[in-house]
């Protein structure tokens, strides 16, 4: 029912309804991630009573974390937030450069953009991360 088909976004109330739905959906997703994360941490630091039982759980948990999208696997909340807020294209360029070690020429050719645009996006991401993380990596 929350995907209301009658909502055409026409008047103020409908707009508010949509805003609220989006706001809630994001908050709820975040709660889920937070919940999984704290559950995982508790299990990691708990002192096991039954070693065999715990071994099973230890095997199950990392799988769950690994099955999440890349951004959700990160433990550093600041870093996660910074990556989530970045533009998709900038993020793509940045990750291709850092994780896959590709050159700007390759990336620019693939996305059909200028070489300078790719470098600018890369350094923009770099600066943003430095700012968000408080310059630890400098």
């Amino acid at each position, binding site marked *: 029912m929350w995907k209301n088909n009658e909502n055409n976004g026409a008047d103020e109330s409908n707009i508010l309804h949509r805003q*609220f739905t989006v*706001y809630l*959906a994001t908050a*709820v997703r975040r*709660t*889920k991630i937070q*919940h999984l994360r704290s559950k995982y941490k508790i299990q990691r630091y708990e002192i096991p009573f039954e070693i065999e039982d715990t071994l099973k759980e230890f095997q199950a948990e990392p799988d*769950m974390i690994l099955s999440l999208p890349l951004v959700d696997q990160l433990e550093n909340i600041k870093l996660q937030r910074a990556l989530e807020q970045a533009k998709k294209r900038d993020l793509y360029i940045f990750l291709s450069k850092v994780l896959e070690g590709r050159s700007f020429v390759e990336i620019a050719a693939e996305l059909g953009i200028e070489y300078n645009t790719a470098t600018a996006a890369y350094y923009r991401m770099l600066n943003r991360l430095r700012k968000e993380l408080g310059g630890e990596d400098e």
Partner: protein
Amino acid sequence: MNFMELLTRAKESNAQALNEIAAMYRPLLIKESIVNGVFDEDLYQEQWLTLIYCIRKIRI
């Protein structure tokens, strides 16, 4: 009653308005309480708190 009035009343802790919004968003909360195909009761409770928090926080 449109959604704006509903939300305004819910903000004032009107029980009926809260119930209506709860009914509207219950499926979303259930969906986001399922982890690896298993329904997590604790998480479900947390999601209700999130809903109430969002109602309080959103600016009209």
